């Protein structure tokens, strides 16, 4: 047993209780109104009375437990896995658990702005302790209640599957019977946490708690909001990055169209507002059409005539979680071809040195052979299946907002400022998101919805069309990398040099592998300013660097005449036994562990002339993933037969859901490597819907994905992102085996070429 401080005094508990009992300020909560606040599973009876125990759970008088999932859900399945962790420590039967999405509440779930954040693969990792403590505290309070009722020592009370026992007296009671008394018990200062070997729920797959609602089409997404009397709004943004709204030309004509209520312009930020790091927004001024139905508003916005004008270049100070950073936004209409030329030009100039070990310059001078390869990747659009949208009802100095967002804590201060109301007057409901991938960490659309509601003084649902979503993006930046290796006359590796840059940021992680495994190492980077908005996209920066690095290591292994897995393991052995430098940010033994596991599970040594195999391994978001990807060629087209995947992310809370996430990350990686691309011409995004933006489809997905987890008792780390970056290299390396060609530039397949 581990003893742990609960960090939760009686006072904070009272505060939490009062809040959870507090009514909704506008008296309306959409999700709660369209779904029963608890979902009776087969045979589950609703209790007559609920007792609030803490922010994470309440217990009904019949023993049914509602667990609140604190973080927003976008397909990573935290709405199931987070409650599983609470239930484990509470010692309740999973069958008696109902799950609700918590509202945004920095009081209940401290740690703002990241207290209820979904992104960076940090959900389970950051909530691992609070979730366990919540369950364990509640269990302790139930035990205390039973001890007081039965007048026996609390230490003699045991719990199992929602029942309290006292062996000597033979007394027992369900959690439901003790819930009222437990709610009066002070929160313990210290609780015992279970040992992993005793887990009954964690590590045992549980089905998605929203599964039935999803397959029966119940309303649960922001898009599905059906608030009575709500108007539909759509916004028109400038056609090109580098432009802003000047004027709306035909507002009166549009207002006269059927079903249209209003046409006006909005400004997302008030004068003098200091933007936060996630207030990325290329088009803070928009033309807005508001009307009765989606179709009517769609027709009206097509007819809207707006005038645009060029933006001026600007320098702004942005608040990066308390630290000021300077951002330069150039004026002008940018082009992908120019970006590529600028990046190539900088590639040939000295970059900013971010790490140097040994004497790489001399090593290159003395090399018998230098191998050099250049890699590139384009901008990517997130293309969440559910386009951006938000519901808002602003009434006087109060606001209720509901919709898909990853980072309520990051946007709420902005919203309060833009509306001119106090933050505590805003209630934020987080709906299940139809995908996020980083895009919904930038929730400018929520501010837009609220400003529109304020203007028309009515509840409003703002909807982005697919075209809006794709062309008003916060894209994955475009990147370049050059890898060079110096070999001696015996083909031994003397030095490695990486230079990487991008628009508008460098993708480099200078202290990641293979840094630490090579005596002479040089890492340089560069960045180019741009007015095209970019941001986090599933495994930011790693999603490019992994592919470049792991492709280069493959090429290097080939040049050195080594097996690609063996070569990586040799480097990792060096990093483990005698690391170069002190700032290496990975654990070489865990890295080697996933490579060894994937070698074994994929049958790497197997000799099959028709199967072309590529390997890749990467560390990011505190987890280690290795893939072996098997390709065959059918009628000259590559077919992904199988991907074998080994993951070390510590304890796996919900294995089947974790496997699903890895399968999805792999398929997503293959799709983006082959097809993903956004380009710009005179500031205009060159793709606006799925007829132009190629997405991976059923026939191109791997025929099989075989996922294995390293079994250990290390606290859980990230999983939503880590399986994604290494796919790019595994695919490129397998395609090289299949075709004899190295694939350096994404997307690997142009338009018109497809997988078999």
């Amino acid at each position, binding site marked *: 047993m581990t003893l742990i401080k609960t960090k939760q005094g009686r006072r904070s508990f009272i505060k939490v209780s009062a809040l959870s009992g507090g009514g909704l300020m506008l008296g309306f909560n959409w999700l709660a109104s369209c779904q029963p606040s608890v979902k009776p599973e087969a045979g589950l009876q609703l209790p007559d009375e609920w007792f609030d125990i803490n922010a994470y759970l309440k217990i009904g008088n019949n023993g049914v437990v509602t667990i609140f999932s604190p973080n927003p859900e976008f397909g990573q399945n935290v709405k199931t896995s987070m409650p599983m962790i609470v239930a484990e420590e509470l010692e309740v039967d999973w069958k008696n658990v109902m799950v609700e999405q918590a509202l945004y509440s920095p009081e209940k779930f401290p740690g703002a702005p990241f207290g209820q954040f979904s992104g960076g693969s940090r959900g389970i990792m950051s909530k691992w302790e609070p979730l366990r403590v919540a369950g364990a505290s509640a269990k302790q309070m139930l035990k205390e209640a039973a001890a007081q009722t039965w007048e026996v020592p609390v230490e003699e009370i045991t719990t199992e599957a929602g029942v309290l026992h006292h062996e000597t007296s033979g007394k027992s009671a369900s959690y439901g019977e003790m819930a009222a008394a437990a709610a009066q018990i002070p929160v313990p200062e210290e609780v015992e946490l279970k040992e992993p070997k005793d887990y009954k729920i964690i590590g045992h797959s549980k089905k998605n708690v929203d599964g039935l609602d999803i397959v029966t089409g119940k309303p649960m997404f922001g898009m599905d909001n059906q608030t009575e009397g709500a108007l*539909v709004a759509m916004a028109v943004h400038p056609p090109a990055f580098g432009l802003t709204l000047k004027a709306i030309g035909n507002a009166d004509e549009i207002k006269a169209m059927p079903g249209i209520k209003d046409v006006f312009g909005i400004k997302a930020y008030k004068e003098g507002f200091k933007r936060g790091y996630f207030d990325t927004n290329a088009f803070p001024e928009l033309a807005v059409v508001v009307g009765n139905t989606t179709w009517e508003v769609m027709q009206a916005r097509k007819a809207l005539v707006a005038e645009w004008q060029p933006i001026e270049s600007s320098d702004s100070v942005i608040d990066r979680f308390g630290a000021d950073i300077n951002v330069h936004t150039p004026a002008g209409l940018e082009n992908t071809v120019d970006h590529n030329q600028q990046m190539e030009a900088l590639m040939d100039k000295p970059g900013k040195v971010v790490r140097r070990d040994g004497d790489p310059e001399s090593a290159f001078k003395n090399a018998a052979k230098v191998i050099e390869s250049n890699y590139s990747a384009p901008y990517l659009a997130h293309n969440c299946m559910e386009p951006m949208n938000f519901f808002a009802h602003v009434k006087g100095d109060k606001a209720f907002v509901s919709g898909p967002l990853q980072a309520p804590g990051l946007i709420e201060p902005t919203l309060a400022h833009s509306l001119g109301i106090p933050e505590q007057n805003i209630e934020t409901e987080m709906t299940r998101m*139809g995908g996020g991938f980083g895009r919904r960490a930038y929730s400018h659309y929520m501010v837009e919805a609220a400003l529109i509601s304020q203007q028309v003084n009515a509840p409003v649902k703002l909807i982005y069309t697919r075209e809006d979503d794709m062309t008003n993006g916060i894209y994955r930046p475009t990147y370049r990398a050059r890898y060079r290796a110096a070999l001696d006359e015996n083909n031994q590796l003397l030095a490695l040099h990486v230079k990487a840059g991008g628009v508008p940021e460098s993708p480099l992680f200078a202290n990641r592998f293979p840094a630490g495994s090579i005596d002479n190492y040089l890492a340089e980077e560069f960045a180019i300013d741009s007015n095209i908005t970019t941001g986090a996209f599933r495994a930011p920066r790693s999603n490019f660097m992994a592919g470049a690095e792991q492709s280069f290591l493959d090429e290097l292994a080939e040049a050195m005449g080594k097996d690609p897995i063996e070569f990586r393991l040799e480097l990792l052995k060096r990093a483990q036994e005698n690391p170069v430098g002190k700032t290496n940010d990975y654990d070489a033994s865990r890295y080697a562990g996933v490579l060894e596991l994937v070698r074994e599970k994929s049958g790497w040594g197997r000799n099959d002339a028709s199967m072309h195999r590529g390997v890749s391994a990467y560390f990011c978001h505190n987890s280690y993933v290795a893939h072996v990807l098997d390709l065959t060629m059918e009628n000259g087209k590559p077919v992904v037969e199988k991907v074998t995947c080994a993951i070390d992310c510590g304890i796996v809370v919900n294995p089947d859901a974790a496997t699903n996430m890895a399968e999805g990350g792999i398929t997503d990686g293959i799709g983006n490597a082959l097809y993903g691309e956004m380009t710009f011409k005179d500031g205009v995004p060159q793709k606006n819907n799925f007829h132009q933006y190629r997405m991976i489809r059923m026939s191109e997905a791997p025929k099989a994905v075989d996922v294995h987890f390293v079994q250990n008792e290390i606290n859980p780390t990230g999983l939503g992102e880590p399986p994604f970056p290494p796919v790019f290299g595994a695919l490129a390396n397998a395609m090289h085996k299949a075709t004899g060609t190295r694939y350096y530039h994404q997307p690997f397949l142009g338009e018109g070429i497809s997988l078999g």
Partner: protein
Amino acid sequence: MATFSLNVNGKKHQVDADPATPILWVLRDHLNLVGTKYGCGIAACGACTVHLDGVAVRSCQLPVSGVGDKTITTIEGLSEQGDHPVQKAWLEHDVPQCGYCQAGQIMSASALLESNPNPSDADIDAAMDGNICRCGTYTRIKAAIKTAASN
């Protein structure tokens, strides 16, 4: 504006709408049946798939004036209790990630199995290639279709 009478999930409905309004928006905005999803509006993603007289169609492309007396089935009407074999197979394989595409996937899959109870991999690919899953649940979708076929 014109009045249309529609047969949706076995019930008759009268709606007043612009004749060009796609059934997708009639379902979502007029009939409050929001299980059918908007993903692209141009027949390129499959999120809006419904059955028209049992055949899978993209509801974003079907104007309300073009329905006539054909019957429409949406995800809400596929079964009474969520126990259509395809829905059951989806739950068994725990297919969804974000879930947004899944109504469309299920409607495409159930129409496929209606016309071809024992589809090959190639049949499944052909019938399902119009449905994008951004989360990449394709391997599970295929497995679930096979399970549903075998039941």
